[in-house]
């Protein structure tokens, strides 16, 4: 998550869940940890038992709130107002941990005097171009570092390719030594910019915009700041309640700023626990299933920019810059060697030209829309059920119904395999089973107990899993499937002289197989991922051993060490009762088995623990090394007093107190000069669908967001547009403990289905009264995309909020149901349209506006007419294009006028 990557240098969760027990205060926001991560929640309960205060901030009272000390209800989509309010509180009262802030953050660094803030530009930063809705970030740079060109085009392209994700493993690159003012008085230093930027996030604004009472807000501010500093630490926990917004990355940035100001990073009981949405989501970005990344967050080459091998290598090696990327050529070459083995040589740039090139947005949503438009022939779905689980379910299903072929590998016959015969579009007549052209291949998948391999869980830890039983029938593991698919493809192409077949034919595809089904050895794959010396076959111990001369192989440089000493380190299972609570000998975590990142910051600039109570890693003067409870996240023998020689580069340019070693300047970023598309500082923008005008700026919603203007992707109108009252309520969706995301692993299982057997809609007693909804009766929820129905659950766990002088109702729905399974129902994801965060192309699927009415929805073609009627009343039909740039500073002729969006795809 680049919100973390640009702030700290790496995108993963900064600590481990067991360490939450050491917190003095835990803030859980954008996460329903008790329900979605019940096992990890035990450490929150442990902290509470030890006296920590637990605060849950959420639109509704959940099972997490039930166990918290304080529950703060919030209007969905206003988290940056609240967090900005906390930042303002900390700065105005000078409650920041000053010694930490000066030493370890970029608070003192001077920013270009060309920089203009949202304060000056009505919600935009300097460098904005209303035509392309992108920034030229030149004026955001540190003083003396301005002057690149082509940056705007770069930003435009970065948005297309979500390139900010590369910041999972490194922060920004910085050349030389930007000027600093450690008194923090210079008006252009980050600290002062921050102070001005957040000055308007007052308690009154928080109360008005978020619907949070002054009392609750003050409780959050006091608890967070009082439980931070030398002796105490506060941990912050978030999950997809933060990421799935059109400003999601900036939510996380706002949390990062608070944790840096209060000195909670790199310290026990502190940090930011980014809880992932599934068992191995961290793993599926480390070794990515994303179009724009290669393993270890190396960029997928782009056709325009990476015309040569050297261009590609330099794009992540950053020659001349400080930090640990100097060796990055070795990561790239070792990866190519892992792909193409002996065929990859220095003479052919290690087969660099075999890598596909990307030319723009090939993200999942773009691809689905391309399917609808007939541009995509085939689709693999592996453990994914987009017919239910992805935003805009109707678009997902219509797209899948317009393919030549579709492969679905799953445990059960999920909706994404049956959409052609039983989806809502079959009811409406949009899909006719007899005529649907897509040929669906449903392949039974082995479950987690039927295959060996690793999961990389939420705290970057790889855990090896044995195969407990042989998979029954035709079920096979993903490893088996892809290995044999590749083998068969190679066999089919054998003898081909076509140049285009070389990448496949030259692929190193020689894993040992075992068992009656010829299962490839997962350990052999893990060893290849870890990397080894080509000549001797010895497993590499660290990515520092990777070479750029073709003498090493390594499939994912950040995982190097997981097979150190030719031992499967991920399979280690030493009990936590037989080692320290850090448990370094349970599994293996990247990077280098560090469990708590940036832990150099747990000691003061001189290398001494900030306090005995919070000691973790410190400098041992006698031994001349860093030592403590964890693997130091610092060069082991670099003393705290080290100052880099002039003109140094690479790791030796980092000083003894540069605690954030993956950052170009070694500092935690309060202000992010480069790497983010929507601005250097988190700024409140309303959700794309909101009943309210942005109370802070003329700019209504994220001006740089990724939009797809199409007749099949209508967005509900929001101010300053008219007719937002057609959809007067705000809804959000999330999951229940009892079900797994799109239900593929739970709705087909009796013991889980019985626990939550039916789709329901949670409403407050007040909304129920207003709309005539009866508990356990039916209601339907309507947006410009669709209408879905569910049973009414009236509960005081939802309460109306008072926002900007009005009563606002929020509605909550679980999103687990679909047309298949033992228990079926309408899918909440059918309600969402497609709008994406510009940095990562993650959809805004945590907030939208809607109408709620009693009774069941219309069925069949009447449903389409019903929704069309809402669209007409809301004014979103024909060639309607909503205004995106609404800041008065952009148009020059006053805010609020609809700005045509070039490049719209209608």
């Amino acid at each position: 998550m680049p919100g973390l990557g640009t702030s700290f240098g790496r995108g993963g969760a900064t600590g481990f869940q067991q360490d939450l027990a050491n917190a003095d205060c835990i803030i859980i926001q954008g996460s329903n940890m008790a329900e979605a991560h019940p096992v990890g929640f035990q450490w929150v309960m442990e902290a509470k038992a030890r006296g920590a205060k637990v605060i849950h901030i959420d639109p509704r009272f959940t099972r997490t709130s039930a166990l918290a000390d304080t529950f703060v209800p919030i209007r969905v989509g206003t988290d940056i107002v609240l967090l900005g309010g906390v930042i303002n509180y900390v700065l105005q009262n000078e409650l920041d941990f000053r010694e930490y802030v000066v030493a370890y953050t970029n608070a003192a660094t001077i920013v270009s005097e060309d920089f203009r803030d949202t304060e000056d530009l009505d919600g935009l930063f300097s460098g904005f171009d209303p035509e392309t809705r992108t920034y030229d970030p030149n004026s955001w740079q540190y003083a003396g570092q301005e002057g690149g060109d082509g940056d705007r085009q770069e930003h435009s392209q970065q948005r297309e390719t979500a390139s900010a994700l590369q910041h999972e493993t490194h922060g920004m690159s910085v050349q030389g030594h930007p000027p600093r003012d450690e008194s923090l008085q210079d008006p252009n230093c980050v600290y002062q910019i921050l102070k001005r930027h957040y000055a308007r996030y007052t308690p009154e604004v928080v109360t008005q915009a978020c619907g949070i009472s002054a009392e609750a807000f003050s409780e959050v501010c006091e608890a967070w700041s009082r439980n931070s500093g030398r002796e105490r630490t506060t941990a912050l926990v978030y999950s997809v309640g933060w990421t799935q917004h059109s400003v999601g990355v900036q939510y996380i940035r706002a949390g990062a700023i608070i944790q840096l100001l209060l000195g909670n990073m790199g310290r026990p009981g502190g940090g930011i626990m980014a809880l992932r949405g599934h068992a191995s989501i961290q793993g599926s970005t480390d070794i990515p299933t994303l179009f724009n990344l290669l393993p270890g967050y190396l960029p997928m080459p782009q056709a325009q920019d990476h015309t040569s091998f050297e261009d590609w290598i330099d794009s992540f090696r950053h020659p001349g810059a400080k930090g640990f990327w100097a060796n990055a050529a070795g990561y790239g070459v070792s990866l190519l060697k892992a792909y193409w083995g002996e065929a990859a040589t220095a003479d052919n740039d290690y087969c660099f030209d075999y890598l596909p090139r990307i030319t723009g947005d090939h993200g999942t949503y773009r691809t689905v829309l391309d399917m609808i438009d007939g541009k995509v022939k085939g689709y693999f779905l592996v453990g994914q059920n987009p017919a239910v689980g992805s935003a805009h379910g109707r678009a997902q299903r219509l797209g899948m119904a317009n393919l030549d072929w579709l492969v679905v590998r799953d445990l059960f016959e999920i909706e994404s395999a049956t959409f052609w015969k039983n989806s809502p579009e079959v009811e409406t007549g949009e899909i006719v089973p007899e005529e649907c052209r897509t040929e669906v291949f449903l392949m039974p998948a082995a479950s987690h107990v039927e295959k060996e391999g690793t999961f990389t869980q939420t705290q970057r830890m790889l855990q090896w899993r044995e195969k407990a039983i042989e998979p029954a029938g035709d079920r096979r593991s993903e490893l088996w499937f892809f290995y044999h698919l590749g083998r068969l493809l190679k066999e089919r192409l054998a003898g081909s002289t076509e140049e285009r077949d070389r990448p496949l034919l030259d692929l190193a595809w020689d894993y040992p197989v075992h068992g009656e089904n010829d299962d490839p050895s997962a350990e052999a794959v893990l060893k290849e991922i870890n990397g080894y010396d080509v000549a001797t076959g010895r497993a590499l111990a660290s990515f520092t051993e990777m070479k750029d001369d073709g003498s090493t192989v390594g499939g994912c440089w950040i995982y190097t060490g997981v097979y150190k000493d030719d031992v499967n380190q991920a399979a280690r299972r030493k009990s936590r009762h037989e080692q320290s609570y850090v448990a370094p000998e349970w599994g293996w975590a990247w990077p280098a088995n560090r469990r708590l990142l940036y832990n150099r910051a747990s000691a003061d600039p001189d290398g001494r623990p900030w306090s005995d109570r919070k000691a973790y890693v410190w400098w041992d003067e006698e031994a001349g090394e860093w030592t403590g409870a964890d693997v130091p996240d610092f060069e082991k023998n670099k003393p705290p007093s080290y100052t880099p020689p002039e003109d140094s580069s690479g790791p030796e340019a980092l000083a003894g107190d540069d605690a954030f070693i993956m950052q170009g300047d070694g500092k935690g970023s309060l202000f992010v000069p480069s790497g983010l598309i929507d601005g250097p500082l988190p700024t409140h923008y309303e959700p794309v669908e909101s009943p309210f005008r942005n109370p802070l700026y003329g700019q209504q919603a994220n001006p740089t967001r990724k939009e797809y203007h199409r007749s099949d992707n209508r967005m509900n109108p929001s101010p300053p547009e008219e007719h937002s009252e057609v959809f007067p309520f705000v809804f959000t969706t999330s999951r229940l403990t009892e079900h797994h995301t799109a239900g593929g692993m739970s709705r087909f299982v009796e013991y889980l289905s019985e626990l939550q057997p039916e789709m329901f809609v949670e409403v407050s007693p007040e909304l129920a009264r207003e709309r005539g909804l009866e508990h356990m009766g039916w209601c339907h929820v309507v947006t410009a995309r669709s209408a879905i129905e569910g049973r009414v659950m009236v509960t005081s766990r939802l309460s109306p909020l008072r926002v900007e002088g009005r009563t606002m109702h929020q509605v909550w729905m679980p999103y687990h149901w679909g047309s298949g399974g033992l228990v079926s129902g309408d899918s909440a994801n059918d309600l969402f349209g497609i709008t994406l965060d510009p940095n990562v192309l993650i959809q805004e699927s945590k907030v939208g506006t809607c109408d709620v009415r009693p009774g069941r929805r219309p069925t069949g073609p009447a449903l389409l007419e019903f929704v069309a009627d809402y669209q007409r009343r809301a004014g979103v039909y024909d060639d309607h294009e909503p205004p995106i740039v609404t800041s008065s500073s952009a148009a020059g002729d006053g805010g609020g006028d609809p700005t045509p969006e070039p490049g719209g795809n209608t």
Partner: protein
Amino acid sequence: MRAPFRRNSLFGPVDPAGEVGYADPPPRKGFFTDTSICIGCKACEVACKEWNDVPDDGFNLLGMSYDNTGSLSADTWRHVAFIEQKKPLGSQAPHLRETVDLPTPQLRPTADGSEAHGGGDLFGANGAGEGEKPDFRWLMASDVCKHCTHAACLDVCPTGSLFRTEFGTVVVQDDVCNGCGYCVPACPYGVIERRTGPEGAKNVGIAQKCTLCYDRLSAGQHPACAQACPTESIQFGDLDELRDRAASRVQQLHDAGIMDARLYGEDPADGVGGAGAFFLLLDEPETYGFPPDPVVTTRDLPHIFNRSTTAAAAMLVGAALSFVGRRR
């Protein structure tokens, strides 16, 4: 041989395993379910069913908060109750907003013109204020068979299917039970029940309830529910130790200002001689569906027996006397 119906065996504090004749039994085992840290994940329900091969209990949305299995039954041996209450939980601050009875913003009439919503600007025009901040708490609690010291189900079982294990727990032997159902009304908690279906399920017609995972205990394992519980809300162990732990937990909660905390079923002097599975509750037992003062339904058996014996003896004496009289 002990005399049947000795005074203490149906009532009062005893060690049940020793009582039924196990020589040197292991320490009595039980559950302490601390509902104050239950997160309502229902992992206990699922783990129980997985391990014990219990069929599903039907797919019914009950509308009882998040409880959709309703109660303990033949097909639900662990049951998590969810209680939404307008009461405070110690010093917990829910910060929910009460705006009941206040008008809402003007909404456009709907397409068919049927609904118009009045109100106008709420806090401006009407000058209405925020209501009182309501108290609210959400209680969750996992229920289970109590494995009573004096188990009426066992006392009334005519086949000996229900028996006392060496761990002091009460277990049905499925292959001995004849489905007579005497145990069902005997249980003061309404725990045990005969399985009525579904067709093809195992043990249909047979009395069913928690075995405290007798098979797992016999193999030195913990019961499935306790093993699965992520927050240690369900604690398994030696009953004596659990009672000590529970007492100090109550004290801890009282010190934290949660004065509602109390134990249920831990007292050996109660109506069932103390439960092998007892609870820390945050409200009256009735709130969770527990009887407030359960009494073993066979408590009065000795009394009844003595009475009826006396009556029978008196009848015999009377009858004999009448014969004597005739002889005269």
